[in-house]
């Protein structure tokens, strides 16, 4: 059997395993496929495999650092003069655009890299894309740049950049390397949620819910953000609707796979806690903790400790709550260190306030 067929078969089997949530087995197959490709001979295939592999291990297994190492390898190779001749074709630019965007996404989502250094990577990506004459493909980097700008404290620029990415994305067909248009709309909704611009965020979320054939993972993001924004808006009907959305979201998350559940569980915790279902809230906090243990990522640990703190406070175990808050605060400082804002610290602060409020309720 020739190598290409081997790689092809390994790739498709890996993708099939991802669909079945067999991530470890998929990772092994991807590694096997990558080992069979010599990047100096077939850079495009190598880059594409690394892109898929990195997304798999970062998203589903929490192995962001290993993903970044693999992506760094491709970017280093992609800038090696020995490969220059290979890097002019459409396929090579396509694969590299995906790798640059994935590098930026993984680096920023896990806060492993300072925002200003991600901008440097995105600048290099744009230079490559523009230089090769594929300006329309810049929507892929714009989407990431939007988030990084927000991380650098330039919120309005970030929002405008995301809107520009959507406008540009409309001109692209499905074969472009950027994420699909619906993905960008979901990102805009999440940015608005992040920046507390909830009215517009809620409106976009509702539009997205009306969208036909929205992919399950995107639908899940909509359930999560919309329920969170409704909860924060705080009306009686908002709370009722948030509860319904969370119920649907939890069910869907279970079908999408374990890694998707954590984001949904954090909102589920808030809903249940607001309903004073203290036992159930602790159970969910425990699930968050188990998930964080499994993925071992700072943001998941932070969310789990935040919930655990409130869970303990509900049962008047304030010393335990304090312990959790301190852990969450340390992680929040670390997570915010690579940005110019205090997103995680503010969020942890709101959990501290919830714990304090429960302490004050004591006779």
């Amino acid at each position: 059997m020739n190598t290409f067929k081997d790689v092809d078969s390994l790739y498709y089997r890996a993708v099939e395993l991802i669909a079945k949530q067999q991530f470890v087995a998929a990772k092994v197959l991807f590694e096997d496929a990558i080992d069979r490709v010599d990047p100096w001979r077939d850079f495009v295939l190598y880059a594409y495999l690394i892109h898929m592999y990195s997304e798999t291990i970062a998203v589903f297994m929490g192995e962001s650092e290993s993903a970044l190492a693999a992506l760094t390898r491709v970017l280093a190779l992609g800038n090696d003069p020995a490969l220059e001749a290979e890097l002019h074709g459409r396929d090579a630019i396509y694969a590299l655009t995906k790798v640059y965007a994935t590098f930026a996404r993984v680096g920023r989502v896990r806060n492993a890299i300072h925002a200003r250094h991600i901008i440097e990577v995105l600048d290099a990506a744009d230079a490559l894309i523009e230089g090769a004459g594929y300006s329309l493909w810049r929507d892929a980097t714009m989407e990431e740049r939007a988030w990084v700008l927000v991380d650098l404290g330039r919120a309005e620029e970030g929002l405008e950049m995301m809107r520009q990415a959507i406008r540009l994305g409309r001109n692209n067909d499905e074969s472009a390397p950027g994420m699909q248009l619906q993905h960008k709309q979901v990102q805009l909704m999440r940015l608005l949620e992040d920046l507390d611009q909830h009215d517009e965020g809620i409106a976009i979320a509702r539009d997205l819910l009306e969208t036909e054939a929205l992919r399950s993972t995107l639908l899940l993001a909509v359930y999560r953000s919309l329920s969170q924004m409704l909860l924060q808006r705080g009306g009686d009907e908002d709370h009722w609707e948030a509860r319904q959305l969370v119920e649907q979201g939890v069910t869907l998350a279970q079908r999408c796979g374990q890694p998707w559940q954590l984001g949904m569980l954090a909102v589920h915790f808030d809903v249940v806690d607001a309903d004073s279902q203290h036992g159930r809230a602790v159970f969910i906090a425990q699930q968050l903790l188990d998930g964080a243990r499994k993925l071992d990522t700072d943001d998941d640990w932070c969310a789990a400790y935040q919930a655990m703190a409130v869970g303990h406070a509900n049962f008047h175990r304030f010393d335990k709550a304090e312990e959790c808050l301190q852990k969450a605060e340390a992680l929040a400082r670390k997570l915010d260190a690579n940005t110019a804002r205090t997103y995680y610290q503010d969020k942890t602060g709101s959990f501290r306030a919830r714990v304090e409020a429960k302490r004050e309720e004591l006779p």
Partner: protein
Amino acid sequence: MSEHDIQFEIEGVIQLLAKNLYSDTDVFLREMIQNAKDSTLKRKELAKERGEGDVPAPRIDVIAHPEEGVLIIEDNGAGLTREEIHEYLSTIGRSGTRILRDQLERAGRLEAEALIGQFGIGMLSAFLVAEEIELHTRAAAAAADDGKGEGLRWRSSGGKSYEVEELERDMIGTTVTLKLQDKHKRYAHEYNLSEIIRRYADFVGVPIHLNGAQDPVNMVRAPWQVEYDSAAARQDAHGSYWRSRFIGEVGLAILVLDEAIEWREDGELKEGRVEGVVGLANSRVYGNSGTLHQLDLYVRNMFISSQPVGLLPRWADFMRGVVQCDQLRPNAARDGVMQDSIVRAVHRALDDAIVRHLRELAEGDQRQLVGILRLHAPSILPVAVRPDQGRFFKAIADLVPLRTEHRPMTMPDYRKTAPKSASRRHIVSYVRDYMAMNQYRMLVAARKVHVFDASEPFAEEFLQRYAQTYPERIELRRLDAEERADFLEALPAEELLRYRGLQTAGDRVLKGEDCRVEVARFEPDELPALIVEPRRRRSRREMEGVVEELGLPAFLEGAVGDILREEVEPAVLYLNASNPTIKALARHAPCGGALVDASFRALYANASLLSGRRLAENETRRFFSHNTALLDLLLATESAEIEP
């Protein structure tokens, strides 16, 4: 010939039907067959009312002309009078069936239940696929009343008007001819028709003959509607039916359903039944909605849906079957049922029956069942660990095999060879990281126990739930936990002291590898060293490998610098105090020297290889040179000894 207005604009209505009511164009055939079947019932009723005894056996014919794109559906039912044509065929929402059903209900006739065509839109659904419909009919009522044998022809192209004219026709009954739209000509192919008829009208109660075949294409009556001489005959008939319905499936464990259901409505307790046959499938097929199961639901013998919402327990994705519950209320499109207390009652009944059946199987020969459950573990595990699924968890806890280093095992199998703790519970070992399995395989083999591979989704939660549910049975031990290493036996303080020199020397030599050394005791004795590496440290090593091998372009220096600056826990190399090589090294270590340094490096390299971790190119080169250096030293020592 006379031309009449239809009371609604059909084109608009058809679009409305297609968009909002019918999710699948196949349903037009169900509607056609349902109309035909209702007509045969009506003829029987009329004959009873008139005291006529000589009514032909009901029959429906479906005839396809693929070349012309024409499909004909013919019945020997009651036919339609001119008034009925105007009344029923041309007015949306007024259905002859409904009127008939009301009459029958008033008369208290059981047949009323057999009629489900209650929306008055059935015929129009043919416009989903046809560009023109022509209906020839001769009414039993007319024949009896005036004896003229008048036939009628109704024709419509889906516009606002239709034509009706008289026609010579001998046969009582109705023939509907559809001229199919180009894009729907597949409905004139026998294979497609057979499949659709089987799905939608298997139990319609009237034989349906396709293209004049002698044998009907449908079952006519469901296996649960037939009397049997014995329970075995009943089981056999249901099993055969299941296999004919789900071709290609092994159909292990076929369960015949005949369950009573109860629900409350307006404060009143009501009763009903759910009947059918479900089986454990041997394959996993994803449906359109992402769900796996296929449960063909029939209400009053008419197919409703193959994935009805809310009926089958969520964990039962691996079941395939056919069920019938005549109390369920179909929605307007008849492709689903109203989500009410009856659905919940059916859900409870199915849940009870399947769990009961799994328990019965577990008491018999489990081997095949266990194999099937392994296949379906991805569906079973996530649901089994849900807090609200305690009963289901208990039903399958001892039946679902999880992967081990050897082969998948159930918990009872595992416990047969598991050691017991001081509290007399079985110690159940598992690893979360599949990559670590290679290393632990030797450890557990030395102890003659197995280790569960909990890297598959929800396997760890399943084990945890087992330990919570049956705390008297097992104690869980995770082998690859960074915070705890259960397979290691700590050394007594005075023995540890003796190894202080070994540890210090190891720390010194391996500092460059970001690895510290600890001494412990573990089995097997012949294994000198093990490595436990935190994940982030492994990633760091990978990144360092890239930088060393390729260098970095300027735009990546800042980003990669941030990653490499983050503090990570070092790896730990555990040296085995029971191993002769380690004992010998301990004697030499305090003195140091090139051989000691090379030995530590070789132990580190070997442990890394044994752990099965992926090595970066630079590591491979380094390990190679470490081992070569050790060989050189040994050979030099030997040469010095043999030289005079």
